[in-house]
């Protein structure tokens, strides 16, 4: 079936199978590799994208469902002003080890700031669904705090 949606600011049209997830279609058909596959069952947040303004795990979204919606992926987020500041804060605090979880963290942090999250505690709660296999949470939270001081 054919689905059409806004991807990172432009309209895309793509043929998908009904059983393909948004994660499958973004990575394999649209070649957007910034969206990562970690667990495939909603537990790790590596596949986080922003769907109509809200972060979701793209491994649990059927691609056919996003027709008419707006999707933002980590590579797009990283190119925005705010996204760049998030990445800078993460680099400065050594919040990136192997880097596999980074696109997911970046995307959730971005969505949280856009939606008005301004304190570290709320940010920590917003990030519960993003796991870091390298367990770099301390530095990730340092980056978040540095960033929040900045944003405020």
């Amino acid at each position, binding site marked *: 079936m054919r689905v059409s949606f806004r991807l990172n600011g432009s309209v895309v049209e793509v043929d998908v199978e009904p059983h393909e997830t948004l994660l499958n279609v973004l990575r394999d058909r649209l070649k957007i590799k910034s969206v990562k596959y970690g667990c495939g069952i909603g537990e790790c947040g590596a596949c986080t994208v922003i769907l109509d303004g809200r972060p979701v*795990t793209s491994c649990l979204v059927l691609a056919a469902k996003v027709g008419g919606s707006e999707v933002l992926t980590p590579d797009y987020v990283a190119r925005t002003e705010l996204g760049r500041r998030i990445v800078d804060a993460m680099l400065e605090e050594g919040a990136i080890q192997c880097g596999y979880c980074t696109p997911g963290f970046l995307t959730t942090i971005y969505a949280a700031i856009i939606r008005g999250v301004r304190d570290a505690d709320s940010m920590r709660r917003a990030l519960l669904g993003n796991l870091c296999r390298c367990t770099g949470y301390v530095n990730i939270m340092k980056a978040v705090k540095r960033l929040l001081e900045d944003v405020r």
Partner: protein
Amino acid sequence: MLSINLVNTYRIPQTFEYYRPESLREALVLLSTIEGAKVVAGGTDLLVDLKFRRVTPRALIDITGIGELRSIGVGDGYVEIGSAVTIQELVESEVVGRHLPLLAEAAELLGSWQIRNLATVGGNLCNASPAADTAPPLLAYDAEVELVSLGGSRRIPLERFFAGPKKTVLERGEVLRSIRVPLYRRRAGWSFIKIARTSFDLAKVSAAVLLSLEGDTVADVRIALGSVAPTPVRARAAEESLTGTGFEEAVALAPELVAREIAPIDDVRSTAWYRLEVAKTIVKDAMRRAYERFLRVGAAP
């Protein structure tokens, strides 16, 4: 013989038809005409089941495009929640925060932000996990569910909706349309406590308490628990015994009374013994927290 594990959660290893109707009627027609059709809402339970091939539907009917299932409204003496309202929408809803704080508290603890943005309240109930986080609060509020099919609609207490682990009384062709929650008229304290492996895992045990006092006597108490029986349950006999007793006495009696009404089991998440002991403890904790909130609600202007 070489055996290869074909289960890999990247792809859904089966196919099906997919429909996303814009009206409830259309959804009901599809559901009743396609043999083996299944409803999908947020997909956070169903996609996992599809990936592991625990279900093999012929078609999926996505109900999240149906406007009437997506709203929260206040009626005469009740709040009505559409089945496709997301858990995050419950968290952010002013109506839910004001009238159903016990539900709001549980919704905040369900899954992660990413999951709450997809997961729906109807999906949480229809999936019928004994651990479903919205169930204990809704049971405590005496919620009713409205089930619709091409043949008409029926409204039943949520307590009678669950038929066992992963089983409901939904019949073929039937959809959960909305959840009607009567307003709790008394001044009340509330508390939802969930014990889980991580903050966003399914509950090993959970307890919801609504409490109202007159002086220091329990005027009304509602206790509901998750993950300690084949379905989420109300501890009705305990509630009855505790009504009319002093608060401290009620807290002392509650654990043993509640223990008589639950039947926890061993499974991957926990053991029966642990569940029983923890249930007894968190019922007490939830009553105390509800008590503190009751006093604070009263102190507010």
